[in-house]
C-alpha cells in the first residue's frame, strides 16, 4: 500500500482543564456547536483535503471517541485498507507502555505508518476548532523543500506570551523558537499542526526513544533537535479562524462565536463542509409559548420555554417557563419547568430540576461559568 500523506491525530489527552466535561470522555469527543464533537474539525479537514489515511492515537477514556469514530464512514474515511485506524497503546515484545508523550505516541506506531510507505506525515491534534485545507499546507511544504513545516498564525502582540512562538526569516524559514516567553520576539504562534518528511521523522523518533532524558514531546524534544541540526524548518502562515478549546472559558467562547456573525468562521460552509456522525432523530419541535432567538438548535429537541443566545445539542427537553440565556446545553439534558439558567454549560443527560436558578454574570473569569452535570 502506498499513500503520499498519512495524518496522525493526537487524541489521547485528558483535557483536565475542561473539568467535568472530560470526566467520562476524552477531550476530542467533547460536544461542540450543538451536534459536532471537537474531533469533527480535524477529521472533516482531512476529508476535505483528500487525505485518505488517518491514525487516531487514543489513551484517556477512549470509549466514546472510539464508538463515535466507528469505521470513519461519517468523514468518508472508510476506504478499504486505508481510512481511519484507532491506535491505542498496546503490549509488544518488550512489554506494554502508555504513550509517554506526543512523539512517543507516534514512535510506538512506526509500523502503522510504514505500512503506507508515505512521503509525508501530518501531525494534528484533537483540541482545535478551525477549517484548513491541509493539501495547501503540504504543497507549501513541497515547494519550500522543507523537512518540517509548522502551521502558524499571527496573534495579537499582547497575547503572544501565551503561545509557543516561532521566529522566521524573510523566506519564512524558522530561525528560532520561544515557548510562552515573557518578552516575545515574534507574534507567530504555532498551531500544533506539523508536516514532516517521514524518512526524517522516523529516524528522529527512533533516536528520541533511546534518549532517557527526553520527554518524548514534539515541541520540547523532536523539533528543537531538528532545529539544532539546522534542518529546513518552515512556517506556513495560516490566516483564518482557529481556537484552542482547552479551557472552559475558551470552549465557551468558541461555541458562542458560532452565534456571532462578525466572527469569520462558517460552520455551514458548503465548499469545505464539516461532517459529524449522527443517528436518526426526530425533527425539533418548538411548542406553544416558546420564544427562541439568536440560538442554534439540533434535531430531537423539544422547546416550550425561552431560549436566548444559546446552543442546544440533540434530544434536549426544555419545559415551559424555562429561561436560558448564554447557555450551552449538551445532548439529552432535561430542563424542568421554571428553571432559569444564565452563562451555564449543561452536561449530557443532566437534569435541571424545576425552578432551579443558576445565574452567573457575564465575565472573563472562567469560574463564573456554571458547569452542570447529571
Amino acid at each position, binding site marked *: 500500500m502506498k499513500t503520499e500523506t498519512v495524518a496522525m491525530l493526537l487524541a489521547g489527552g485528558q483535557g483536565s482543564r475542561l473539568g467535568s466535561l472530560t470526566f467520562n470522555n476524552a477531550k476530542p469527543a467533547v460536544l461542540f*456547536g*450543538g*451536534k459536532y464533537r471537537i474531533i469533527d474539525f480535524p477529521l472533516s479537514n482531512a476529508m476535505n483535503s483528500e487525505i485518505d489515511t488517518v491514525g487516531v492515537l487514543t489513551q484517556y477514556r477512549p470509549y466514546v471517541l472510539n464508538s463515535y469514530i466507528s469505521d470513519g464512514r461519517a468523514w468518508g474515511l472508510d476506504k478499504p485498507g486505508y481510512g481511519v485506524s484507532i491506535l491505542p497503546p498496546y503490549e509488544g515484545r518488550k512489554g506494554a507502555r502508555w504513550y509517554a508523550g506526543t512523539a512517543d505516541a507516534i514512535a510506538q506506531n512506526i509500523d502503522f505508518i510504514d505500512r503506507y510507505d508515505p512521503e509525508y506525515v501530518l501531525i494534528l491534534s484533537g483540541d482545535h476548532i478551525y477549517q484548513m485545507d491541509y493539501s495547501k499546507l503540504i504543497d507549501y511544504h513541497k515547494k519550500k523543500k522543507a523537512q518540517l513545516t509548522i502551521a502558524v498564525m499571527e496573534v495579537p502582540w499582547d497575547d503572544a506570551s501565551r503561545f509557543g512562538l516561532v521566529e522566521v526569516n524573510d523566506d519564512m524559514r524558522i530561525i528560532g523558537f520561544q515557548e510562552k516567553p515573557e518578552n516575545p520576539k515574534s507574534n507567530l504562534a504555532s498551531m500544533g499542526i506539523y508536516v514532516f518528511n517521514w524518512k526524517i521523522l522516523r529516524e528522529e523518533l527512533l533516536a528520541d526513544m533511546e534518549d532517557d532524558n527526553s520527554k518524548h514531546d514534539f515541541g520540547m524534544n523532536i523539533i528543537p533537535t531538528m532545529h539544532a541540526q539546522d534542518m529546513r524548518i518552515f512556517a506556513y502562515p495560516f490566516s483564518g479562524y482557529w481556537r484552542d478549546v482547552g479551557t472552559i472559558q475558551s470552549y465557551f467562547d468558541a461555541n458562542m462565536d458560532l452565534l456571532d456573525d462578525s466572527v469569520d468562521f462558517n*460552520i*455551514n460552509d458548503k465548499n469545505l*463542509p*464539516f*461532517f*459529524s456522525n*449522527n*443517528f*436518526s*432523530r*426526530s*425533527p*425539533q*419541535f*418548538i*411548542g*406553544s*409559548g*416558546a*420564544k*427562541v*432567538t*439568536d*440560538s*442554534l*438548535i*439540533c*434535531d430531537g429537541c*423539544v422547546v416550550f420555554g425561552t*431560549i436566548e443566545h444559546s*446552543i*442546544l445539542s440533540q434530544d434536549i427537553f426544555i419545559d415551559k417557563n424555562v429561561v436560558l440565556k448564554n447557555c450551552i446545553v449538551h445532548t439529552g439534558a432535561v430542563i424542568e419547568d421554571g428553571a432559569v439558567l444564565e452563562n451555564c454549560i449543561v452536561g449530557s443527560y443532566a437534569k435541571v430540576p424545576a425552578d432551579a436558578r443558576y445565574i452567573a454574570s457575564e465575565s472573563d473569569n472562567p469560574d463564573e461559568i456554571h458547569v452542570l452535570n447529571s
Partner: protein
Amino acid sequence: MKDTLGVIVPLIGDDTNLNPLLGHRTIGTLPFGGRYRLIDFSLSNMVNSGVVKVGVIGTVRYSSLIDHLGTGKEWLLSRKTNDLSILTGSVNRKIEGDYRINMLDFILNKPFFEKTTKDKVIIAASNIVTTFDFNLPAQVFNKNDADIVMIYRAESPSATTLNTDVFLTTEGHRVTAIDYANDKKTSKKYADMMIVSKDTLLKLIKTSEKSEEYDLMRILMDNVDSLKIYGYELEGYFNRVFDINHYYNANMDLLDYDVLKELFLTEAPVYTKIKDNHPTRYGLNSHIEDCIVGSGGYIDGEINHSIAFREVEIEEGSKISNSIMMQKCHIGKNVTLDHVIFDKEVTVRDNTSLIGTVEEPIILSKATTI
C-alpha cells in the same frame, strides 16, 4: 419476527389525487413531517418489530425510491443478516379496475416469495402514518394458527370514505366478511397492514394467476370462508395520505405534542435518511411557536403552526402560519404566507403574500420562484 418477511406495497390509485405534490417522486417518497418520507413509517415499523428482511415494491419513478432508500443502511437493513430489496412493480402492466393491492405486484416477484425461508409475510402500504408493533398481531396469528391477520381501526364510513376503502365484519377475532365501502358498512376499517403466511400468499398468487382476478381484496372476499382470517385492532394514531387534504392534516397533526410523542419520541424511532446539516440557526428577529423544524435551517421571521423541513430559510419580517415548506425553501423578507404547501426549493421573493385556506391550500411545485 426473524421468521417474517416485510413487503411494502403501493396502494393503487392513492397517488392520483396527490399528483401536484408528487412531481418526480413516488407516493412513498413524499416528504413528510419536517425530515421524513412517508415510506419511513412502514419501513421503521417493520424494523422496530424485529423484521430483518424487507422488499419494497416500486412504482413509476424508481429513482426517488432508490435515492431515498439506498442500501437500507439507515433502517439497519444493510447488514450481513439484514437486507432490503427493491422489487419490480407492475406499473407497466395496467389492468382495469379501481382497487388497492394489485396481485400483479406479487406475481411479477413470485420467485422472491417462493425462495424466502420466512414463514410469514407482512404486507403494509407505503403511505400510512402510524407507529405499530407487528408483534401484537403476530401473537394473534400464532395463537390461532391463522392464515391471515388483518389490522383494522375503529372508524365508521363518512363523507370522505372512498369506494375502495375496505371494512371488516368479525365474530370474536375471526373475520367473517370483507367488503368495499359501497357494498356494506361496518365500523372496522382495514388499516392497510396484514400478516399472511407464506403458504397462503403463494396460494393467493396462484389463484390470481389462474382466475385473472388481480384484486387482492376481491380474492380475500371470495375466500373468506375457506381462509382463517383474523382481525387485530390498531388503537394508536393512524393516517393514510391519499390526497392533499390528508397530507396537510397529517402534517398538522404532528403539531399536537401528544401525537408527536407517540410517533417520534419513543424507544422505537422512525428512521430516515441522514443528512449532514448544521444545527438550525434562529436569528435575533425570530419568533417561533408551535412548529416542527428540520436541521440546517435559518429562521429570522415569525412562524407559527407550521412545518419547515431541512435547510428552510425564512428572512426577517416574514409572517408564516399554517404552512408546510419542504427542504431548501427560501422565504425572502416581509413575506406573508398562510395555508401554503411548498415543494422543495421554492423561492419566495421579498414582500410577496400568498394566502390559502384549509380546504384549498396554495401549492407550489418544486423549484418554483414567485
